[in-house]
Each structure stands twice: as C-alpha cells, then as structure tokens.
C-alpha cells in the first residue's frame, strides 16, 4: 500500500469522526439555541404555582406538567409490569432452560426484541379494539393499554440483560455455593442474582429510558394532545415525546413552537440522565451502594 492511500484512509476516518461529532453537536446546539430561552419554571407549570400543580390541587393548562406526569405514570406502570416477568424469564433462560426449549425461546425473544415499536403499538391498539367489542364498552386506547404495550416493548430488553449478566458470572462464583450444598434455587437467590445486580439494574434503567422516549407505541394507544394529568388508568393522557411530535406538525404560533423546543430539551435531559445512570451502575457504583451497605 502506498503512502497516498494511507493518508487518504486516515483522512477519511478523521472526516467521518468530525462529521459525526459535527452532526450531533449541530442537533443539540440548535435545540439549545432555540429552546434555552424558554427553559424556566413556567415552561412546566404555566401560571399555576408549582406546589399546587404537583399536589394536583389545580390543573396546569399551558405548561408541560401534564405531559411530564403522563410520561412518569406510563414509565412506572410499564416498567413495573415488565420487570417481574422479564426477571423471571431471564433467570429461567440463564439457569434452567436447556436443549431445544432454550433454542426456541431465545429465537422468539430475539424476534420480540426486533419487532418495530409501531407494530407493538398496533398490537396494543387491536387489543383495545378487541376488549372494547367483547368485554366492555368503556375500554378505549388509554394509559393502561399504552403501559401494557410499552411493557411488551421493553420485556425482551429486561430478559436479555438479566440473562446476560447472569451468564457472564465467573464459574468460581457460580459453583461455590453449590459445592457447599446449596440447592439450585438457593444459589440463584443468594449468590447469582445479588452478584449480577448491577448488570440487571442498568438494563432496567435503560428500559426506563426506552419507555420514556418511545413515541410510536403511545401514538397508537391513547396519547393525546390535551388531556391534563391522567385521572385513571382508563383515561387518555399526555406524554412528552408525543407532545413534541404533535407540536412539530400542529403548532400555530411561535410560542407553541418554543414550548416544543423546551420539551425536547427536557426529554433529552431525562434520557441522557437515565443513560448516564445506567452507565454508572454498570461501572459498579451501585453494587457497592446497594449490596454492601
């Protein structure tokens, strides 16, 4: 290979790195340039005193608080639904499953993980239609349906991170308790799960981020532009990512658009925070904090 090619390849790689960094800083820079001015407390709470809004004494009409509350409830509901199922399935896959069951199950989890979120949303929507026709007229696309659909969306992530963090434990950790006479389940309960806690936890935090940012699922299953703070599981609700999508096509004045930029910055902040948290946890900070008090 001659000098020229070598220089060209080097230049190409550096150009790629610079393009990537440039593009992402353009996006974030543009967002902040347009939206930094509106990041104030009244972006979230409007004219309502913050304390009244948080205690649900008064409705917030022109702020992002209902959307943030909607996203919060949504994330809590779906992660708490997906977590027990995902943990159990992950532990089963890593510790019990063998032979053809293991092959079939892991193939189907791969498929589940890859299903586009809009298809999961469509599935949630058809469940709502199905329930509406056959069980109760009161069921429409709502917080409950969205939460369930999002739980389906993150379930394979939780299964996979649980399975992976259990499987990567060293054989020494895996065998000690068994050699001392512990049963299989005791080994899982007292040794394997606590030891892989940081891996599992960081997977959960990433799942939270996935729930918070996903728009395709919720736009089919009940997110609306104006609903206030959700009153029950069966009501429609607002959510931060849907609000951003809605504003991008339906804004009527510069003020609304500015709110859209503000909402984007808040969502970006939440997701970045969750991402960093997952990273820190993986680095083992959390294991020390949670398991060795």
């Amino acid at each position, binding site marked *: 290979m001659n000098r020229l090619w070598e220089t060209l390849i080097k230049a190409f790689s550096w150009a790629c790195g610079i393009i990537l960094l440039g593009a992402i800083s353009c996006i974030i820079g543009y967002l902040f340039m347009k939206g930094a001015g509106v990041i104030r407390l009244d972006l979230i709470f409007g004219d309502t005193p913050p304390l009244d809004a948080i205690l649900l004494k008064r409705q917030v009409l022109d702020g992002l608080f209902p959307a943030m509350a909607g996203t919060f409830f949504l994330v809590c509901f779906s992660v708490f639904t997906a977590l027990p199922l995902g943990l159990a399935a992950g532990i089963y896959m890593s510790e019990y499953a063998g032979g053809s069951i293991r092959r079939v199950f892991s193939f189907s989890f791969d498929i589940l993980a890859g299903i586009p979120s809009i298809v999961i949303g469509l599935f949630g929507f058809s469940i709502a239609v199905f329930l509406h026709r056959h069980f109760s007229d009161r069921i429409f696309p709502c917080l409950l349906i969205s939460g369930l659909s999002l739980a389906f969306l993150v379930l394979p992530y939780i299964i996979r991170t649980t399975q992976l963090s259990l499987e990567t434990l060293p054989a020494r950790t895996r065998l000690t308790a068994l050699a001392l006479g512990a049963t299989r389940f005791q080994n899982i309960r007292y040794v394997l799960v606590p030891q892989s806690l940081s891996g599992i936890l960081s997977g959960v935090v990433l799942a939270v981020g996935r729930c918070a940012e996903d*728009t395709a699922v919720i736009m089919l299953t009940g997110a609306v532009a104006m609903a206030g703070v959700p009153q029950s599981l069966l009501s429609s609700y607002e959510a931060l990512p849907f609000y951003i999508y809605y504003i991008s096509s339906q804004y009527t004045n510069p003020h609304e658009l500015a709110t859209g930029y503000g909402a984007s910055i808040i969502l970006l902040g939440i997701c970045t925070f969750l991402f960093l948290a997952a990273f820190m946890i993986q680095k083992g900070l959390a294991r020390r904090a949670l398991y060795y008090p």
Partner: protein
Amino acid sequence: MNRQFEKTAEMVLFLPALLSVILTLAIFVFMLVFGLPLMKGGRFFELITGSWSPGHGMYGIQPMIMGTMAIASLSVFFAFPLSMGCASLISVLAPRGFSTFLRHTVRLMTGVPTVIYGFVGIFLLVPIIRELFQNGSGFCILSASLMLALLISPTMILVFMESFDRVPKSYLDAADALGGTPVQKLVYVIIPQARQGIWMGVILSMGRSLGDTLIALMLAGNAIATPGSVLDSVRTLTAHIALVIASDYESLEFKSVFACGLILYGFNALIIVMLRYVESKGTQ
C-alpha cells in the same frame, strides 16, 4: 419438601418465559386475524404488489413497501462508510484521549430520543435540503434517510468497534513485528478478521431503519407514490400505520395497516434469521 419447592420455583420462573414466547406469537396472530378480510381468496399477493387507490377499492401497499426499502437502504448506504470511518478511528487510528471521547459520545448518542432527531430534522435539515435542491418541499427520501443514517450510526459503530476490538492481540503484534503501520494493520488484519461483526452491524442497523417510524413519518412527506428519485416524498409502512390509524377502524382502508404490520413482522423475522446465520458462520 425441599425438592417440591425447587420444582415450584422452576415452574414459577418458567411461566413468564413461556408467556413472553406466547406474546411473540400472539402479535403475529393478531395481525393475521385482523388483516384477514383484505387477504381472503388469495389476494395477499395482489395486496403487496398492487397500488393504493381507496376510491377504486384498491388497497395495495406496494408504494409503502418501496418507500420503506428506499429509505432504509439509502440510510444504511450513508451510515456504513461513516460508521466504518468512526469505528476505525476509535479502535486504531485516533490518539487515546480522542478515542475515549468519541467512544463515550457514540454510546451517549444511542440514548437520544428518536423524536428529537425528527423534530430538529423538520426545522434544520428539511429547509437546507429545500434550499439546496430547489425541488419541492424538502420533505423527501433524502432528508429522512440522512437523519436515519445519523440515528443508526451509533449502533453500527458500536458493533463494528466491538468486532475490531475482538481481533486477537497476537495478530496485531504480528503485524507490528512486521513493521506494519496502523493503517496497514487496519486494512490487512483487523477488517478482514472482523468481517462477521461488520455484516452483523449492517444487518442490525438495516433492521432498525426498516422499523423506524418517527423519522420517516416526520421527514419523508408521507405521499403515497412509488418513488422515482431521492427528492420524492414517500410514505413508509410504519408511517402508513401511524397515519391511517387516525381514521375509522371499520373500513377496508384500515385493514391495510395490519398487512403493513405483517410485512414489518416478516422483515424483522428475516433480519433475525440472517443475524443468526452470520453468527453461526463465524463460530464454525
């Protein structure tokens, strides 16, 4: 009693796993059952090759399939060289400090919400494309696939990077001992060794861009037409689902979204099978 408990524990852990498998199947079955009225009498083929004209009772989703293909392949086409360059930079060419910085930035980029790419795309990228080409509104295949390329690059870079880093150190030492420069090491040792990982990265990101909704929905313009150039506006399968669902759900028009869902499900299954195939090739 202890044995009994062990059995119960295994059962309790088994059921959620089984439930998740059933869920995977249930999604497929739901799409099939709800979409059936449109596919009865062997009209499935007609459905995926026909054109869209609800006024004439034609609900073919061929334009959406073409739109999806166009945007997904173009975005992979943009993202591939970019990701190769960045992965080489991170793994081999850049000095340690910059490499670490880039690595963390790329990781962080995987966490940026899709809707934000779309939002900024509308107000930043689309006007630029419109001014640059002086052709139409700027909402077109090119805008969507450029943004999508940025969305899938981090995933691709991470997969490439990991496969670059897996190349055995002894191979690199051998190249060093022969007096190879970093670029020679990259081109003659690392990239050939990492071929499997490169394939997997490309297939994986192809899957992501086929399934992405928000970017295409917000940036591609959503016109139902078979694309003729990259500046044409198209509607993807995913965007079609999102847009039609707003209309009433008894019409035949509405049933077509389940056909879209089925096709997307099929694409995804195909991607997974391809990934498995590439993976098994490498371990032999």
